[in-house]
């Protein structure tokens, strides 16, 4: 007994002397549900950053990082809240998550704010998260759809499109993006002839297409999913000759789009969030070594989310989210020494020495108030049945 006590005391003393601790980081993502195919690669991105920081030995006097996964289900807010509460009970200080907009709002309001847990979402894009009261605890490395709407409007205008009809998938994503696009386009002097919802998973979209055709316009903006109603509407519009020019946001951009429509949609515009630059290439190498797919949507954003959480803790010299949250914007933005993926050890060292850093990361992170990615978007046009990258915005 005496020995045991002694040993315990000695261990406690040792740990105390080093000032090292075990920082718990939650990966709160939709491992089941409608986006379950995306979640593993997103989690892998976040875990890669956590491991890099932990293995460097330079994190807060040799502290280590432990990650734990929990399931948001994407659609069931109650299940997501319960899973997040369990994470907090296990001592998690900060979380990478949630994955979907609705569920993220619920977790932030019911778990994040009451417990003072910092959350950085890699993939929740609803404009509602920009205006939510978050006590400065919520950030996201994904751009708001409000921003995507502006980019879409600008591109359409630049191509000489004066009037558009909008069709959107009947959910938070579709409605949010359609509204922001409409507002931005009208602000630029364009005319929106109609903005109508469509439901996914129907056999027949001829009535929807007829309504859009009747409203008319130079182009049709299809704010939907390529595997769902978005393609159905596009097919109908092409078959009936209602529209021959389209504007496709992120949900529609993919190989499936050009496989399905080929040269029929030549001249249409595509927009999706994507970054260029050195960070991307470094991240791809790193992902190949860690064994996950770097091109998977939002895995780069998850890497950046985890890295930002840990770097801001280092900058605050404390794992306490209340202190760390003040440092996130500072770490993410210029001025400072640029830090790329794979260079987190360098970032940690610089921060320990009191030097300011500018975390660039895998997705060219640039956070704007209130703590979300400014967003870098890729513009593509469809030429000869292929997606051709025109530029970045």
């Amino acid at each position: 007994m005496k020995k045991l006590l002694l040993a315990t005391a000695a261990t406690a003393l040792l740990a105390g002397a080093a000032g090292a601790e075990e920082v718990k980081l939650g990966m709160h993502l939709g491992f089941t549900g409608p986006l379950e195919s995306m979640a593993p690669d997103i989690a892998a991105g976040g875990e890669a950053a956590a491991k890099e920081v932990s293995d460097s030995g330079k994190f807060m006097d040799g502290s280590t990082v432990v990650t734990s996964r929990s399931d948001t289900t994407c659609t069931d807010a109650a299940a997501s809240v319960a899973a997040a509460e369990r994470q907090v009970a296990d001592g998690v200080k900060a979380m990478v998550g949630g994955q979907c907009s609705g569920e993220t709002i619920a977790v932030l309001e019911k778990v994040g704010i009451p417990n003072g847990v910092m959350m950085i979402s890699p993939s929740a894009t609803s404009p509602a998260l920009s205006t939510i009261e978050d006590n400065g605890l919520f950030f996201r490395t994904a751009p708001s759809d409000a921003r995507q709407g502006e980019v879409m409007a600008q591109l359409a205008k630049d191509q000489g499109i004066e009037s558009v009809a909008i069709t959107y998938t009947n959910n938070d994503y579709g409605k949010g993006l359609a509204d922001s696009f409409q507002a931005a386009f009208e602000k630029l002097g364009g005319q929106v002839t109609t903005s109508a919802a469509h439901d996914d998973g129907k056999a027949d979209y001829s009535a929807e297409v007829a309504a859009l055709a009747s409203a008319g316009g130079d182009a049709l903006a299809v704010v939907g999913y390529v595997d769902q109603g978005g393609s159905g509407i596009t097919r109908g519009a092409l078959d009936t000759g209602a529209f021959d020019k389209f504007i496709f946001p992120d949900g529609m951009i993919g190989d499936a789009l050009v496989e399905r429509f080929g040269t029929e949609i030549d001249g249409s515009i595509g927009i999706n969030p994507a970054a260029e630059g050195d960070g991307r290439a470094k991240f791809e190498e790193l992902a190949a070594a860690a064994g996950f797919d770097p091109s998977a949507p939002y895995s780069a954003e998850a890497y950046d989310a985890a890295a930002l959480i840990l770097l801001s803790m280092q900058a605050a010299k404390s794992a306490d989210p209340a202190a760390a949250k003040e440092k996130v914007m500072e770490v993410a933005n210029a001025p400072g020494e640029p830090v790329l993926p794979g260079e987190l050890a360098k970032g940690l060292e610089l921060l320990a020495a009191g030097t300011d850093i500018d975390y660039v990361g895998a997705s060219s992170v640039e956070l704007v108030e209130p703590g979300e990615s400014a967003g870098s978007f890729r513009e593509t046009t469809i030429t000869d049945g292929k997606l051709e990258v025109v530029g970045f915005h």
Partner: protein
Amino acid sequence: MDLLNALVAFLNFVFIPAAAYGAQLALGALGVTLIYGILRFSNFAHGDTMAFGTAITIMATWALQAIGISLGPIPTALLALPIGIAGCALMVLGTDRIVYRFYRKKKSDPIILVMASVGVMFIMNGLTRILIGVDEIRFDDGARFVIDVRSFREWSGLSEGLALRTTQLITVIVAVLVVWALFWFLNRTKSGKAMRAYSDNEDLALLSGIDPEQVVRLTWIIAAALMTIAGTLYGLDKAFKPFNYFQILLPIFAAAIVGGLGSPIGAIAGGFIVAFSEVAITYPWKKVAGHLGFQSDGLLQLMSTEYKFAVSFVILIIVLLFRPTGLFRGKSV
């Protein structure tokens, strides 16, 4: 010229889609009405049996394509139809043997048979998904268009385009042929007359030496043929997805009830009434009105397209309230 443009826009967005959809509903409603008239219950498994028959047809189509048989510009699925019908007929005969015959022998109330058919619906639902999966399948091959928009515009010089898909034309032609064959069978052949006699009065039919089990079997086989053909045409024209066949049950029942359950002519009329109302009520008439000289800022749309299914419900309620036996005096529900 403007009058022609208005006409073409109407044809392109209202008439052609509604006619094809109406033909599909009419075939479905004919099956429902036949089963109701002769077996005396509303078959809730109708939609999912359509899906089952279509699934077999699709697999037969794949097999034909694999050995290199095709019909040129016409979809190969039409050639595979007999196989689909045979498979579906075996299935419904088996179901009748295992489920419905038991209740028929006991002379159960129709409502018990209806509930049994709900059970069959769920089983059929699962079987189809096990057989072919839940995903959307497109199995139309051959030429996509009879008239396509671009060449129509060039040919006519009109600003409006007209598209007529091969599948739409085939749907209407096949529906007309099937309806003609069915009426010929019911009115001209001995078996058809036996079926009608059994439908009118079971006991009297029995006294005149008609074998009831044979009539039942024949009814199921004809119903299976109607279901498979309707399902395949619907799948060719749109896309095959098992869940959609469950959803199409409501408009089919609406069509059968509007026309009068038990009345074949009513089923056909009902199919077209439901289809044209659904399309015309949710169609914005702005463009057509514009061509006719009435400029409007509004869309001139009675109801947004999300409420398409509500139209079937409303028609159903109105008919049940004011003419419960349907437009063509079928049996009361």
